[in-house]
C-alpha cells in the first residue's frame, strides 16, 4: 500500500498530470497505483469547472500538492499569458526518425 497520500484525504489538492494539465480538486480516495478519486474538479489556470467527480488513472498523474488551507490563493486568477504551459513528461523529439536517418546516412559514407 501507499499510505503516504492519506494525509491529503478530503482536502483540496493541486494535481499536475503527465500531459501538462493542472487541476484543483478534493481528494476523496486513492489506491496503491495512485489512481485518484477526486471531486469538484477545476482547471488550475482558467478556473473552468470540469466536473463534479472523476476517477483519475495513476499513470496520468505526475504530482499532487496539498493546498495550504491557511493561505489558500488557489482561486485567485493566474495570469494566463504570463504562465508558461507545463510540459508533458514524454519528452518526444519532433521528427526523431529524420535525425536517425541522417546518422545512418553519415555512417554509410
Amino acid at each position: 500500500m501507499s499510505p503516504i497520500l492519506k494525509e491529503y484525504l478530503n482536502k483540496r489538492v493541486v494535481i499536475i498530470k503527465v500531459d501538462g494539465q493542472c487541476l484543483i480538486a478534493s481528494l476523496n480516495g486513492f489506491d496503491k497505483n495512485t489512481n485518484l478519486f477526486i471531486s469538484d474538479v477545476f482547471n488550475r489556470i482558467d478556473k473552468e469547472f470540469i466536473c463534479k467527480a472523476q476517477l483519475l488513472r495513476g499513470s496520468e498523474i505526475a504530482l499532487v500538492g496539498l493546498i495550504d488551507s491557511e493561505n489558500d490563493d488557489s482561486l485567485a486568477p493566474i495570469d494566463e499569458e504570463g504562465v508558461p504551459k507545463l510540459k508533458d513528461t514524454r519528452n518526444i523529439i519532433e521528427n526523431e526518425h529524420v535525425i536517425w536517418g541522417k546518422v545512418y546516412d553519415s555512417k554509410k559514407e
Partner: protein
Amino acid sequence: MLFFSFFKTLVDQEVVVELKNDIEIKGTLQSVDQFLNLKLDNISCTDENKYPHLGSVRNIFIRGSTVRYVYLNKNMVDTNLLQDATRREVMTERK
C-alpha cells in the same frame, strides 16, 4: 528494495527533485514508499515565476514514475558503501 532503503535514510534532508516535465522542486524529504513515490515538505520551485501553479502549496506528493533526477548533497551519500550494497544485492538475487 535497496534504493527504497537508501531513500529512507535520506528522510528529513533537503533535496532537489527534477521531474520529467522539467520542473525542479526543492524541499525536505518527508517520506518514501516502495514505488519511490516521494513526499516533500516546505517546497519551493527553483524558478518560482515560471511555475506559479504551486503557489499556495507547501507539501507535495510526487509519483515515482515522473521523477528524472533527485539531486543530493555530496555528504548525504557514501558512494562506496552504496556501490558495495548494490553489488551485494545482485549477488543475493542470483542465489
